[in-house]
């Protein structure tokens, strides 16, 4: 027997979207942070585990990676937080035109960074198949590149959506704001990787 209802409250006046932890999107993004963050943490652990076993870091006869591309990438990704924060605020205020412009800017900045990333691979001074050092250095850069590319595609799609009439919906602004939060995670994870790829081999050798 299904119990009879006793009407105890009305939900019809609740809002249909909100930013931050009130929205479902935010929780999805946080969960993916945790998953990807764990994957990075395990890769970092593997890096130090292998470092302990190699004869040198980098091994003898290998030079540490060239600094130029990686450092430029790092500077640019740190600077990109300025438009990213502006984008997040604009989304939270529902300023459509500003959101559209800033999304395009973020897409463009990321393209420049993707080009730099390609040069980073070229300046590692080791192949993945040379030794365990090469394997883990390539793995770190590749993992972050995949992470970066995923968010770039996400940003491109959002830029597209915000330029259609769907861009007027409140929930799409939530998506933009949470994507901006994801971008912070992308550069935060990069900072330790930058140190591990470019600087630890210099300090350790």
């Amino acid at each position, binding site marked *: *027997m*299904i*119990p*009879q*209802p*006793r*009407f*105890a*409250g*009305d*939900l*019809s*006046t*609740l*809002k*249909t*979207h*909100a930013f931050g*932890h*009130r*929205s*479902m999107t935010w*929780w*999805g993004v946080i*969960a*993916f942070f*945790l*998953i990807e963050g*764990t*994957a990075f943490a*395990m*890769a970092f*652990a*593997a890096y130090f*585990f*292998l470092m302990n*076993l*190699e*004869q040198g870091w980098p*091994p003898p006869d290998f030079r540490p990676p060239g600094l130029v591309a990686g450092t430029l990438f790092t500077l640019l990704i740190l600077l990109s937080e300025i438009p990213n924060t502006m984008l997040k605020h604009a989304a939270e205020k529902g300023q459509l035109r500003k959101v559209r412009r800033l999304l395009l800017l973020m897409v463009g900045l990321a393209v420049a960074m993707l080009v730099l990333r390609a040069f980073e691979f070229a300046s590692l001074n080791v192949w*993945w*198949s*040379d*030794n*365990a*050092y*090469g*394997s*883990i250095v*390539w*793995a770190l850069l590749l993992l972050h590149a995949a992470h970066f590319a995923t968010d770039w595609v996400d940003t491109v*799609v959002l830029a597209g*959506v915000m330029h*259609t*009439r*769907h861009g*007027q*919906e*409140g929930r*799409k602004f939530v998506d933009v704001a949470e994507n901006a939060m994801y971008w912070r995670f992308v550069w935060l994870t990069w900072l330790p990787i930058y140190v591990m790829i470019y600087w630890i081999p210099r300090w350790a050798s």
Partner: protein
Amino acid sequence: MTAKISPRDHDRDGEKLQGEALHFRLEKTWSREPGLWGWLSTTDHKEIGRRYIVTAMIFLALGGLVSLLMRLQLASPESGLISAQRYNELFTMHGTTMMFLFAVPVMEAIAIYILPLMLGTRNIAFPRLNAFSYWAYLSGGILLWAAFLLNIGPDAGWFSYVPLAGPEFSPGKRTDIWAQMVTFTEIAALAVSVEIVATILKLRAPGMTLARMPIFAWAMLVVSLMTIFSMPSVTLASGFLLSDRLVGTHFYNQYEYGDALLWQHLFWFFGHPEVYIIFLPAAGFVSEIVQTFSRRPTFGYTAIVLAIVAIGLLAFGLWVHHMFATGLPRVGYSFYTAASMTVAIPSGIQIFCWIATMWDGRPRFQVPLLYVVGFVITFVLGGLTGVMLASVPLDLQLHDTYFVVAHFHYVLVGGSVFPLLGAVTYWFPKFTGRMMSERLGQATFWLLFGGFQLAFAPMHLSGLMGMPRRVYTYPEGMGWDLTNLLSTIGAFIVALAVLMFVVNALLSMKRGQAAGANPWDAPGLEWATGSPPPVYNFPHIPVVTSRTPLWDNRAKLPVMTGLRVDEREQLLTTVIDARPDLREPSPIPTIWPFVASLALAALFVSSMFTPWAVVIGTPPLAAALVAWFWPKSPDVTPEPVIE
């Protein structure tokens, strides 16, 4: 009795729209298209949950059949029934299937079906991701079993240790298939974990504070977080393994300063929590069953919840006890021995709370509770041998013997499969609208319980007498003949019992006694709606004021109204107090998760043959994902509510 509704407003449930009229409207909104297209596109958690359950049970049967073949081979010494190579494949398939394709998915499957009902909501969070996860899981299962049937099944054991699984000692595709199957199932499990965490934290019925949440929900919350923190490790490990095998990296190659132990660390950092990922949902089942059948609220709710959380945390400090035989620093031995023994404490607390609930209640020993009793006995025995194995000197003697095989079957079958069968019997009326046969169920339980003890108790002795695991045969005169014969007889009794369970389920689905909404007089919200539930789960959103809402509101259940009936709308509540907060739409069905899973499968399978598959396979996958996320509704109508 449809009320007159202002054209300016959207139709909502409420005093003016309830009963048949509401049912008609909600069903129209929440139903999917009929036919194959609709079947492939569905986002209904119940439909996907049912598929998951049936698929996982098929894998249980397949994994069981494989074990019967092994037991036939081991029934007598120097049996020539199965070759050494085939035997390697069989134990690899058995372990891999049971762990990756049955145990973890089946627990998630039950949660996918039952949690949204338990929490009083209309659908799971991220329902398209849910659909995608099922197809990814199915792809992994098909990959593994198709490979086995094509005679390229994996043969390096379910934990696929390097260097055996590396390119030097396992040429060919067998291990690649194993590793890609892992990737598929981990993607599926991670996706489901995200959905479950979000569902539990954001979609609970108003008033269902964290402290009033069913213990099963607590268990699934902890399990999902454990999955999130452990499975990336095995995904990374199997990715490294694949790249060592396919593109010549050296993660595990000691000649280029990689290390085989890196594999063991990464694998067991996942593999040990995995054991609790399988056990804790079962602890949730047990709590629900004990409460209902003891006709009293669970004794020590807070203690059980804290124990679940403690087990979840401790599980991450135990992985090295699988590596005692690899040679570790002394402090490592001591730490992991202490941690392994510590985990017995919260497990013990749970057991005492369940026994106390039964002691103080008025227990009805129907089939679900029988399985709980079987669980308590078997799990405690397995736990005791676990404490024995936590001691390093003993572990070094017993490592890789049948004693270990006996131990983990006692904890895994006793700790998970028994509660699972109890849970299936318990929720069967909710899934199908009919009861399983009690008489056949009781006979099945006793046969299963006896058969299990006969199969696995003698393995303790085989192991103590030195019989190693994973040997395809053994010579006469080792003293292992009788114990092995008994194990084989027991295994066939278990198989007969499982067959009886399946027959019972199939017969009951057609001819079982009609169940009604709440046949067991249970207290949880899942019993406050029809059996099987309507596609929209609840006509009005239930309100919760205690841990046992249906026992405390026997006359009338408080509900909240005002969700739209012309759109799939869900109520979001606050994380801790479950106060009503937002109305958000639940995504409509779409084919794109299915298409994305096909693209993913094409990418993964072809990447075993050429790394270029990653380059060629990514754009179609990305395109499918973009189509999935692209907004579907053609008209944008900001609704006339106060914003």
